[in-house]
């Protein structure tokens, strides 16, 4: 009697395909999250570097206005096509020392956005990372 090779049954195949589809879909759905996390982490690191840079600049001179950085966090002279981040530096309410009613410390609000597709990167407050710097006032003395 000749033995007959049997193939996967339709049910088996359907079952396997459904399991595979479910699993793959589920896993593939996770993949963007992982990639997002990686991208977020990279961006966050770059943003941290940008904020450190801005903080250093604020420490040596009165800084205000919008500033732009590329994807690697390198400063740009203007908003070019390479601009990946925008920073807006603006004076905030002066900070008072404890027990002192007069605000004497400079407070600087540093807002950072990566929404460069928008005309105004800072339009959506939810997408803006904000840090407050507290610095000594800039005096009328000369330079060092």
């Amino acid at each position: 009697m000749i033995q007959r090779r049997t193939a996967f049954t339709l049910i088996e195949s359907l079952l396997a395909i459904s399991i595979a589809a479910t699993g793959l879909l589920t896993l593939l759905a996770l993949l963007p999250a992982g990639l997002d996390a990686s991208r977020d982490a990279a961006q966050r690191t770059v943003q941290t570097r940008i904020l450190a840079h801005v903080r250093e600049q604020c420490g040596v001179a009165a800084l205000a206005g919008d500033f732009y950085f590329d994807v690697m966090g390198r400063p740009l002279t203007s908003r070019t096509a390479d601009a990946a981040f925008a920073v807006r530096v603006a004076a905030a309410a002066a900070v008072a020392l404890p027990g002192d009613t007069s605000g004497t410390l400079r407070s600087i609000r540093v807002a950072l956005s990566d929404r460069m597709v928008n005309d105004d990167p800072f339009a959506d407050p939810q997408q803006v990372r904000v840090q407050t710097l507290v610095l000594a006032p800039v005096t009328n003395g000369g330079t060092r």
Partner: protein
Amino acid sequence: MRTRGHCRRNGSAIVIVLVFVAMIMVLVLAVLGTGMQSRKQSAAVAKIQEVEALERLPAQIIITQLQRATLPSTTADGEHLLWASQPGMIRVFGTNSRAARMHYRLYSAPVMNSATLDLTQEAAALNPWNTQTAGYTDLNEPVAGNRDGTLEKRFPIADPAAVGRVDGFALRSAAPGVDTLHPLPMPAAWIYVLRDGRLVVPASVSGSRAVFSADTVTADNPIVGRIAFWTDDESCKLNLNTASEAAAWDMPAANTQVERGHAMKAPSSVERHRISGHPAFTSLSPVLKNFGGAAAGSTQWPKPDVVNPLTADSSTPWQRYVNGYQALVPHGVSSDLIVRQDRHFATVDEFYYNNQRQPNGGSTSFLMEPVDLNMARFFVTTCSAAPELNPFGGPKISLWMVPQDATQRSAVDRRVMAGCTLNGGTAQPYEFAFQRAANWSSATNPGSSQSISDDWMLVKRNGQLYAWLQQLSSTALPGWGGKFLDKYGAHSRDQLLTSMLDMLRWTANTSAYLPPAPGTSNPLGLAEQSAVPLSIGIDPASSTHGFGRFPTVSEVAVVFAFTDVERGSDGKPLDTNSDGICDRATKLRVFLVVNTFVPAGGPPAVSPAWSVRIRRLQHLTLGQGIGLLFPGGTARNRCSLSSSLPLSGGTAWGGNTSAYACFASQFTQPDGTPKQMGVVNDPARGFPFMSSGDVSLQSGMGMAGSTLRFSGGAIVVDLMDANSPMTSPKDHDSIHSVEMEFPDQIIPMPSLLVSDFASGPRSIANRFTPAMVGNEMRLPIIQRGDIVRSMVLNANGPSNGDARLVAARRELFLPEATNWYCTHPDYGTADTPAGQFKPQAQSLRDGAFMSTGQFGSSLQPTRSTAGTLLANVRFADNAIPAVPVGMNGAPGDWESGMGVLEDGPLVNRSRLLPSAAFTRGSSAMNSTATTEPLGEISSAICFGALPSGVYGDSSSSTPRPWQTLLFCPNPAGRSTPADQPGQSATDHPGFGSPPDHLWLEFFWTPVTEPWPMSSDFATEGKVNLNHQLMPFTWVQRATALHGALKGVRIPAIPTAALDDQGDSAKGRSDGSPLDATFRYEVDAEKTVNGLNQRLDNGDVFRTASEICEQFLVPRRITGHAYDGNGFSPADPANVQAGGMTTWWNGAAGNAADAFEATGDNLRESPYAQLYPRLCTQSNVYCVHYRVQSLKQARGSKPNEWDNTRDHVQTERRGSHMIERRLGHQSTPLPDSATSSTARSLHEAQTFGILSQTPFGP
């Protein structure tokens, strides 16, 4: 039927799919995990950045505090402000009150700034720090470290183990909250930081829980961190780059072996550790002596007090001691005095290595262990600086006077000027230094030192700076409130300013300015080391006049020299009663002798070139109008002999280190040839002030035993330029003029010996020819048979015998001159009983002589020519003071003569040629080559010799004799005990408000060697008087003050050492030095205790000059001989700072029971050694911080923080070094001296963070 194989194949697809899915899942999860991990890492980086931002916050707060405290120079309503710093606090003072108007805390506290301060409460507030952990933290909390297997504590600020190892470091009381983990707490309040940057402190703290205002701290603006900090003042530490180890040196105060040794071995140009004003004179040994592997008592680092001080310069132990320290620091010198080539230390850590990257000090076996270095960090620094600005924030004026012509300036001059020039390197430099019109060039072109006006009229800058000082002294001084103008009055104030400017001309940097001593360039020594006084203005009501190195007139003597007698027919003198006395004199000649007095006498030897004119001599007559045949008013006597010029016998005349210099130049030509008597038309060769021929007495006059009438009259003695032409007198054509009136009085006839006239008329031609008497050259200008009548400076007149008050007046004419001069006590009057007339009523004195006597037919003892400086004290024969006869005690300030030289009303505080103080004259010695300005003049304390009441004060124009600027707390007149507040103008007018010592704050000498320690109007290495640590008052760290005091020596001459005896402080009777000492070292502990009295009362020192109000407590130096030699001064061993008045001045009214014989210059000497190295303002601060980033636990109330529940995410500790300095200006600053728009230079300061040092062992 299904086979088994069939069965196996069934489901394999699922298995394959599952395997495939599993693989995909692993891959996806890996991607996901990596992403999440990266996210965590980036979040951590962000946290680090946040805590780094927190780390910088304390420094930013302190910079803000420094800006607020130190930048404003005036309030909105124009009140001038002055600030003073100390560790932990800056106080700002105004002019309306002595109290601080604002206190700026430099440590985290619930209230950072306040107008008032309660020192007790300030410290008490910290007592519960260890129980209220949400409110306070210990900044000095140690961490455990492991070193070579040994567990050790490392402290971020101060290691308590340094107590007992480091001088000046002590725990004054128990620190609050001490336990095993916190052996030396330095608690500070937590300041919480909110998300929006606001800084808040808890409304209440209970243990670990802090509650904040719910209005401020919200869920939207939560707490994100907290900071605590305390700021050290780096000027309270010893600077490793500037300090070294002091080797005491000072100008000779007496004639002892030690003083001579020092004088003969003056500091060389590289021995800056011997120059008391230099930062290198501050000692590192208070910190290092017990480090470097040397235990206390080790011979490796012998203490200076066990080294024989008599051989301090060369003995091996001392050299090893000093070199041990010198080898460690960048500017030190090695034993062969080669400047060490080394870089400066950027941080204290670098002290561990030398420039060869080997352990520092390897050659001296000094091995500082890392643990030592950590311990030393609280006491040493590598960066400290203090502003050199006056109380109004303007540049201090350099004491180093330079030529106006920049091409005449030396390399040293240029370096100094670089330090005192505003806007240096720009097109608008403003030099803050007085300047000279011209240097000495030749005997015929002597420069402006020989001009009464050139340095004023030809140097515009001098006028500008002078006017600026007038303006500043007319303004209320911040911190004090008074004005100098209101204290002295305008005339005396201006006189002071003129005296200061004048003094700077001849005190320092004189080598190219003053005429040199006899030598190649000045063969005859014309005007050797002299300066004509500077005079400003001619209006008697306002003109002022310096001293120069120029004579004034202390006495004028009229010598009646009888030249012939009545003779018999045989031509022999008639002697009717055969008693050997001529019956009658018939002829005489009269001449005048001016006794000069140079208030600026002393080393280096001085021989002014001057000429004298005596007006109105024609009014002097004898009897009933017998004229004395004097020349007319154009006659001059040019007096330009250098007393240092070797005469024919090879010996110089000498006497020119004494105040009684240049006496002989009246009678001797510049080359030593005697002047020709009666020659009127040749001032250089002739002596005109004598009868042009014999004056014949009328019949009946001149009988032995009778008297003559000397009409007297007012004469004017004009001291003029040596080359002034013989023209008719004009107003103000002299340099210095005095008028005096000889009374119309009878004089006795002398007993003329027959033997003197037996061979004929007696010649007076030999009187100007030196004759040897013993080993000394003498001018026999007064001989047997002469009658001499003198007008002397009146000890009971307006000057009280203080010749400085005469010298300070360009013209002293009658009637103002009434009573300034009086007749000699032996002058006699109509009431003098016959037979009691003294033939020679004179006190002429030449500085060349002391113990061997002065002028007269027999040499008059010097004692008879002078009074006494101390009431009822009979000075030793070799120490007769330079005061007029008849004086019994100077009620105030006088100067000790250096070395063997006499005490008196002197003004010279030059530090040139100390060896010359041991000769009464000087061989041809030039001024030392100038290489170190600080060695010649380091502070304005040299002005302490200047009279401050020449024209009275603001309330009275009556002159104030024996009153000079006061730069010490122990003037002779002080009776107020040292431990009682309230020394006042009754003790000395200098104490009156504002105190004299504030003048010091207007002057400085930039430190330029071995590298520019002074730049941008700040000097590195100064030590802050305000050493108190706020608010940690239980800790005392006076280490830097100990270092500053270490090399200071206090000279103190007991009256017993000058009292009548063979030996005195001026040496033994044979001139040899005593084996004794009159110097004391400073007992730093006791002295600091004295300073603490003020600090403990909640006050601080506003200016460094206030050290002049503090007693430096002396201590005998081991190995020195204080007793013996006929005196045994009180040992200060058991005297505290509070007992110093009594130690110095003894019982009131008794001038002989203590150290009353110490002149004003010696009393001020230790302050001159100390003051230039002190400050009360600092430019460098170190912020010790502790910061934490915080996150509240879920469910916590936003306005509450609980250490036990909420989370400290990150903590950082460390320190920031902050510097303030005069920054580079984009536009030049205006000239502070002349511009109406000029502002305080404090306002032009910039601030920056020099370095950050994490604490993380």
